[in-house]
């Protein structure tokens, strides 16, 4: 980078000596500036990732030394339902939640983005109001929704009562727990809405006009122009949404926290998300090795799901 510039200044006497000095200097300064970040990376990312892999093959808690058990954690988690009775339940809960929450959130986000995009006056205000739930701490979200879902005095049941729907005990009825959680996720669709809005702004006006001239109605324009043009956005939101939903934790933890630091998985473990289960193993049952194995099962699962999504989209495109 500096070489061509210095080339033009050949008359500078110091040139042959300056260049190498600048280089050694760059080498030093360059490394110096990245050192804090690289040290952080090594200590809090690389080492934990590798040691998590190692510990997943051991029987380990924070007080004792780890003892090697080979693949026992993995095989026990997957097949030993005496030792880990709720493992598959947590998988089922998490998959159900993902399958409901992700599409619901994306549809809500797209609808909101289309509406906001089609108005001029007040667009910024609506965008802001719809974004509000996103910046809210999950501890506060959990607290607010516990109260909203309150079976006796909660706002949800009161509103449903006004239109004649009987109130439900949302967070205490096993079949209703996941829909209730998915609704909270859709309530927080503001980020996806903003990203969809950016996608909509990226559709050239000429394409829309051409479709209108060709006689396409709004419905046709939506399915034939907007949806295809938003494919990259939708794909991005799908991949990141699935990855996030598979790791749902903080919200469930707050919603189902009991006295002290105890936490249940909801009625009949119906809210026992995979990561909540992992957390319980690591920090309640003191089975760090098993928790590490669970985290790698999740990691592998996320990688497979993401690869499949990429594959699927490629096939669709060709």
């Amino acid at each position: 980078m500096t070489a061509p510039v210095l080339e033009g200044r050949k008359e500078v006497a110091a040139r042959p000596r300056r260049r190498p000095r600048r280089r050694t200097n760059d080498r030093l300064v360059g490394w110096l500036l990245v050192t804090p970040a690289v040290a952080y990376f090594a200590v809090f990312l690389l080492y934990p990732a590798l040691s998590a892999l190692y510990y997943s093959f051991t029987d380990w808690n924070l007080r004792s030394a780890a003892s090697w058990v080979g693949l026992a954690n993995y095989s026990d988690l997957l097949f030993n339902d005496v030792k880990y009775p709720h493992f598959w339940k947590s998988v089922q809960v998490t998959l159900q939640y993902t399958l409901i929450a992700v599409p619901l959130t994306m549809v809500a986000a797209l609808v909101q983005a289309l509406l906001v995009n089609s108005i001029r006056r007040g667009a910024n205000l609506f965008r802001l109001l719809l974004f509000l739930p996103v910046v809210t701490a999950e501890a506060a979200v959990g607290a607010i929704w516990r109260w909203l879902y309150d079976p006796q005095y909660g706002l949800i049941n009161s509103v449903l009562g006004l239109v004649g729907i009987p109130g439900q005990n949302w967070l205490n009825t096993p079949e209703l727990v996941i829909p209730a959680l998915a609704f909270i996720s859709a309530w927080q669709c503001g980020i996806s809405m903003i990203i969809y809005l950016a996608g909509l702004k990226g559709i050239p006006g000429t394409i829309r006009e051409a479709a209108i001239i060709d006689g396409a109605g709004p419905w046709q324009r939506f399915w034939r122009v907007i949806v295809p043009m938003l494919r990259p956005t939708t794909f991005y939101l799908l991949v990141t949404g699935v990855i996030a939903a598979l790791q749902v934790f903080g919200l469930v933890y707050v919603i189902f926290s009991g006295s002290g630091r105890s936490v249940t998985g909801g009625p009949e473990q119906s809210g026992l998300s995979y990561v909540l289960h992992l957390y319980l193993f690591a920090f309640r049952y003191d089975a760090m090795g098993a928790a590490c194995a669970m985290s790698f099962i999740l990691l592998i699962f996320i990688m497979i799901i993401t690869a499949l999504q990429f594959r699927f989209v490629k096939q669709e495109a060709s």
Partner: protein
Amino acid sequence: MTRARKASIYVALVLLAAVSVVPFLWMLATSFKHGHDIYTKVPNLLPVDRKTGEWAATLENYDYVLNVGGLGRAFVNSVWVCLILVPAKLLIDALAAYSFARIPFPGRDKLFVVLLGGMMVPTITLLVPRIHVTQSLGMFDSGWGLIVPNIASVLDIFLLRQFFLSLPSELEEAALIDGASRMQIFWRIVLPLSKPVLAVVTITSFLFHWNDLVWPLVVLNDPDLYTLPLALQQLVASPDGGRAYYIMAGATLAVIPVIGVLLVFQRRILQGIAFTGLKA
């Protein structure tokens, strides 16, 4: 667009906005109500007396959660953590990003790719061993344990580097020829030109750490060190958990600062989300 269609769009938007905002209004109203006034068959979005319907707001819920419920101390802790963590993280990330973007040093690009690879690992996978590392460093259950394990972010380095790369390099080259050092260039030229991205990174990282529940939850035992989200969760989990008026006062304390930040920096935040996509 016909008037009827336009009107129906606004009606739909008002309904959706109500769904997103009413929970907050209800939170606020509940937080100002006397205990007995929250138990009504027909919900009241204003703090009024259950029987007479007259205005009956009170601050005693805030008094309780701040002084008895431990949220006052937690609020101060959260402020301290953010005040130290956010600028320190920004500095570390910006220095690294500048070096990766502009200073040719051997092994730079390979190192950067390795760092990016680290972004692929879900944080939950790192959680348990990170606790172990924090313990080994003697920072478990301490204020430093909240700060140091979060003090850099590969994603932020990536975003800052992208922005630095987009700056015209002529200015920096001219400064180099005039004998400016790399650090002078960083402070005097690169940072002033990068205000938009610095703002986005600062705001998103504040929001993230102000709201973060998981890390404080696993790294802290001492209630004196609790941050606001953790103290709020503890309040929910305590025997007071059934007392929605306390909980909602606590939730309001956690929510108000971020809503303030959102209102002040809305343009930057919303642009930043569209630009980075990932964080909230």
